[in-house]
C-alpha cells in the first residue's frame, strides 16, 4: 500500500515525461525529413501537395494573433475585476463573483465556440463590413472571455497574499482605498498578477475547439487580425483525422504538438517560479 502511494505520487512526473517522450518519438520523422529549420522558417503550409510543404510560420503567427487579441481582452478586464473583488467589495459580492467565475470556467470550450458562431461571427462581419466574420479577432475575443476566470482567480490570490498590515499602514497614513491599492497593494502583488496574465496566455494559446470553430482556418500569413487565421491547435484538430498514420504529415502534426507543449511548458514554468518567489516574499 505504501509503495502504491509512493508510485501514485511520482505519477505526475512519469506522465509528463511520457507525454514529452511520445511527442518527440512521433516527431522524429518530421524533424529528419521536413527539417526543424525549414518548418520554423517557411510560410507555405500545403501538407497534402506532393511533396508536402510544411512551413509552420502561418500557424505560429495565427496562434500569436489570436492569443494577442485574447490577452487584450482578458488581462485588463480580468485584473480590473480581481482588484474590485479583492479590494473594493464585501463578502457577499465576493461569494456571488466566485460562483459566476466558477460557472464561466465550467462552460465547455465547444459551447463558447457555438455562442461565437451564433453571435460574434455575424457581429464582426457587420461591424467591419467583411465578407466573412471568421477572423483572428473573432476567435481572440472569445478566447479572451474564456481565459478571464484564470486571470481573475490567480490575480485575486496574488492580491489576497499581500499582508493586511501593508494596507492598514497605508490607510493609517491617510491614503484612500484606491491610493492604497495602486501605491501599495498592486506593486506588492505585481509579480503575481504578471503570472496570472502568463497563465491566461498559456490557456489561450492551448485552446482548440473555440478557435477551430471561429477563425476560419486559412493557413496563410495573415496581414491583420481581420483576416482568417489557422492556429497550431486548430491545425492538429482539423487534420489529424485525415492523415495516414505514421506518415510524414502525421509526424509533422506531432511536431506542431511538440512546439505547443514546449511553449506552454515554458510559460507555466516561468509563471510558477514567479508565483513561488512571491509566496516566499510574504511568508513569515
Amino acid at each position, binding site marked *: *500500500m505504501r509503495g502504491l*502511494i509512493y508510485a*501514485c*505520487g*511520482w*505519477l*505526475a*512526473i512519469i*506522465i*509528463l515525461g*511520457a507525454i514529452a517522450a511520445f*511527442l518527440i*518519438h*512521433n516527431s522524429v520523422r518530421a524533424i529528419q525529413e521536413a527539417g526543424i529549420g525549414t518548418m520554423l522558417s517557411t510560410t507555405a503550409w500545403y501538407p497534402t501537395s506532393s511533396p508536402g510543404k510544411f512551413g509552420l510560420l502561418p500557424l505560429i503567427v495565427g496562434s500569436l494573433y489570436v492569443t494577442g487579441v485574447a490577452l487584450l481582452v482578458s488581462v*485588463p*478586464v480580468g485584473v*480590473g*475585476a480581481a*482588484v*474590485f*473583488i479583492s479590494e*473594493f*467589495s464585501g463578502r457577499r459580492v465576493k461569494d*456571488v*463573483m466566485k460562483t*459566476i*467565475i*466558477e*460557472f*464561466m470556467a*465550467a462552460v*465547455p*470550450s*465547444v*459551447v463558447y465556440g*457555438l455562442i461565437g*458562431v451564433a453571435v460574434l461571427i455575424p457581429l464582426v462581419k457587420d461591424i467591419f463590413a467583411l465578407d466573412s466574420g471568421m477572423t483572428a479577432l473573432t476567435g481572440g475575443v472569445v478566447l479572451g472571455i474564456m481565459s478571464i476566470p484564470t486571470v*481573475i482567480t490567480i490575480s485575486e490570490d496574488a492580491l489576497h497574499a499581500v499582508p493586511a498590515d501593508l494596507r492598514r499602514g497605508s490607510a493609517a497614513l491617510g491614503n*484612500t482605498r484606491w491610493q492604497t491599492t495602486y501605491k501599495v497593494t498592486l506593486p506588492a502583488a505585481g509579480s503575481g498578477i504578471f503570472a496570472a496574465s502568463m*497563465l491566461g496566455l*498559456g490557456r489561450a*494559446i*492551448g*485552446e*482548440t*475547439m473555440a478557435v*477551430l*470553430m471561429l477563425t476560419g482556418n486559412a493557413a496563410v500569413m495573415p496581414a491583420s487580425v481581420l483576416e482568417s487565421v489557422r492556429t497550431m*491547435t486548430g491545425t*492538429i*484538430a482539423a487534420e*489529424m*483525422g485525415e492523415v495516414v498514420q505514421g506518415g510524414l504529415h502525421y509526424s509533422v502534426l506531432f511536431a506542431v*504538438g511538440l512546439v505547443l*507543449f514546449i511553449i*506552454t*511548458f515554458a510559460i*507555466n*514554468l516561468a509563471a*510558477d517560479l514567479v508565483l513561488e518567489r512571491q509566496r516566499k516574499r510574504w511568508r513569515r
Partner: protein
Amino acid sequence: MSGTARIRQARAAEFVARMVLGAMAASVVAVALFVLGYIVFHGIGAIDWTFLTQIPKDRGREGGIFPVIVGTVYTTLGTAALTLPIGILAGVYLSEYAPRNYTTRAIRLAITNMAGVPSIVYGLFGLAAFVLAAGFGRSILAAALTLTCMTLPVVITATEEALRQVPQDLRQASLALGATRLRTIYRVVLPAAAPGIITGSILGLARAAGETAPILFTGAVFQMRRTPDGPLSQFMALPYHIYAQVTSVPGWNPTLVWGTALVLVAGISAASIAAGIWRSAQRRKVTW
C-alpha cells in the same frame, strides 16, 4: 496645491477608480449571464422526452441525443473510476509522505505543468500512447485514460489541499491510540477531508465531460448505430456532437444543437452545484 484640493482630488480619483473597476467586474457578470441566458433561451425549446430518449436521425438534424448522452456518461464514469483512486493516493503522498526536498518540488512542478498542457496535446498523447502503442484502439477506454491524465492534476491538488486542512491534532490523537500511519490516514484523515476531495474531483470530472479536443482522436465518433457495449467500443459524446454538426453538417438544426449544449451545460452545472451544496452541508456538520 492646498490641502482641501488635494483631498477633493483623491476623492474624485477614488470615485472614478471604483466606477471603472466596478464596470469591469460588472462586465464579467454580464458576459456570464449572457452566456447562460443565451444557452437556456435557445436550447430549452428542444428539451422534451423524445429529444432525450431517441437516437439522432438525419445526421442529427432530427431525432434525439440518447446515445450521445450515454456516451458522455460512460466516458466520464470511466474517467472517474481511473482518476479518483490514483489522484487521491497521489494527494495523500504529497500531504502525508512527501519529504520537503527538491524531488517533491519537482513533483509539484510537474502537477502544475500537467494542468497547463493544452487539451489537444493530451489528444495527441492519447492517440500515440493508448490508441496505438497500448493497442486499445479508438475506444471509451482510450478516451477515459486520456481524460484521466488531464483531470489528475485537479484531483491531486484538491486532495492535497483538503488533507492539509485536517488539523494535526487528529493525526496525533490517532497515532497515540496506537493506530499505524496508514490506518490513521484511511480511518481518520481521509474521512475528515472527504468533502473537499469530492467537491474538487467533481469539478475536475465535470470539466472532463465537456472536453472535445482530447477525445477527437481517441474514440469519439459522430454517428454509430448502437449504444456502446463495452470499454473497447467507440462512443458518441455531447461536446463532439455539437462540434461535428456545426462544422460538418450543412443546414444543421440550431434548436437541436442548442438543446445539446443546454443538456451539457446543465449536466455540468448540476454536478458542480450539488457538490457545492454537499460540501457546505458537510462543513456545518464537522467542526474541529
